[in-house]
């Protein structure tokens, strides 16, 4: 299969990451290439949905909840010693996982990097760990929409991928789906588990990552 160097640049073009001369070159090419124009339109549609998700999610119910839970709380009698002064990443709250899930669904690798590799705060953990809550239904709905978008892009470009590659991608998506089903079943039995909530969110993110990658492969093949 031929890898078109122009389609490979479309994502950067869309993100405004190209130098001025590269941007001009892409625009000249777009003017003459209906295929790349169509691919760009698909990417733009996904990005637009992503922007709507990103704009909506942190502004509504997730971040205030996260912030509340991350704020230091007075110690109460629990039998656990205070941990003041010890540094700890705030990483596994279900809300944070859900926020990361939505963000990665929304805006791709950069959001993943921010959510996953650079947690927004690092501060002493509260004396009482906040009670875990399930991933909000709204976040899962956003996830479902993002998956549907990516599956649509992938389906449109499926014919351009090698059949062996398609089989591998499908097999691995099925592996992830089984893991998601495992996590959901476990959560049904133990909905308060912070680990299971975080695990589910992480596995959902992995599916989005793979779908995004598959869609990119299809677009440029």
């Amino acid at each position, binding site marked *: *299969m*031929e*890898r078109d*160097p122009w389609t*490979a640049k479309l994502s950067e073009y869309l993100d405004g990451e190209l130098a001025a001369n590269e941007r001009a070159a892409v625009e000249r090419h777009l003017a003459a290439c209906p295929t790349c124009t169509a691919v760009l339109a698909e990417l733009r549609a996904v990005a637009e949905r992503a922007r709507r998700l990103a704009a909506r999610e942190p502004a509504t119910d997730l971040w205030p909840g996260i912030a509340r839970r991350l704020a230091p709380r007075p110690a109460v009698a629990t039998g*656990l010693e205070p941990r003041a002064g*010890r*540094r*700890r*990443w705030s*990483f*596994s709250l279900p809300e944070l996982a859900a926020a990361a899930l939505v963000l990665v669904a929304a805006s791709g690798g950069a959001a993943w990097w921010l959510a*996953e*590799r650079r947690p927004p705060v690092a501060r002493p953990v509260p004396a009482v760990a906040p009670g875990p809550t399930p991933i909000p239904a709204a976040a899962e709905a956003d996830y479902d929409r993002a998956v549907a978008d990516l599956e649509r892009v992938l389906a449109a470009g499926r014919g351009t991928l*090698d059949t*062996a*590659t398609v089989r*591998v*991608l499908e*097999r*691995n998506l099925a*592996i*992830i789906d089984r*893991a998601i089903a*495992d*996590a959901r079943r*476990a959560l049904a039995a*133990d909905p308060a*588990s*912070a*680990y*299971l909530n975080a*695990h589910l969110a*992480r*596995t959902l993110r*992995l599916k989005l*990552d*793979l779908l995004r*990658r598959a869609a990119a*492969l299809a677009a440029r*093949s």
Partner: protein
Amino acid sequence: MLLALTLTALAGTQQIDTTLAARQGQRLELSAPAGEIAVGTWSRDAVRIQATPSGGARVEIDESPRELSVRSPGRHGRVSYRITVPPWMPLGLSGVNTSITVDGVEGPVSAETVDGDVSLKGGSGVVSLRSVQGDVSLEGAKGRIDASSVNSDVTVRDVSGDVQVQTVNGDLRLERVQSGNVDANTVNGDVSYDGAIRPDGRYRLVTHNGDLTVAVPDGADALVTVSTFQGDFASDFPLAFRERRGRRMELTLGRGTARVELESFQGTIHLKRAGPARPESSESP
């Protein structure tokens, strides 16, 4: 201003062997839809391109002050590339049905293929290796490391810097890693880690359906969090948990300053001492 140089090799009849001057700051971009890419180094500030096309493949070379671009346009044929570059030269290598091998470089490397192995010795700065259905291996890199496959294994050894490794259906092996920031995630495979646990480090190792083994060096100061649903936990260390709630346990080693998060949904998590040791105890969470 772009200086374009195009060399065309006719199918099966002509090999390319050309050497071009390399300017500091110039990057090599090489794209080969099918075939092999092998990159080595020499001490000259020049790039030698040896290409053997077959099956109707062509080779095009474009040169600008910022980039030396080598590509094989068209859907037919294969090209076997042997490229020699100065060690400092950043590389961007890509393919589809292509294997990629790089040895001895000292700069940033991006290598991506769909069906083929990716192997790199060396590299620094941003190092990104990706394959869909091929093994990915990395040795001796320094910097921000991102190595991933989908349907195969990922191995990194003797690396330093931020390390992120991922696959879906394969094992992750991290050996002799010097890092304060490690993130390893697979769904259907084992994870092993043998490397530094820095006092301010953060290490997250995750599998869904596989075993997870971490070799902890002597004197490590870490708060180890072990999470599983249906798996087991084995430890070479005395089980003095500071907290245990449900399927999540915390174990403090030394001053407990580093964060080590170990998760396996349904496999065995083994915390072992670096070097040969026998488990002192085991427990199912």
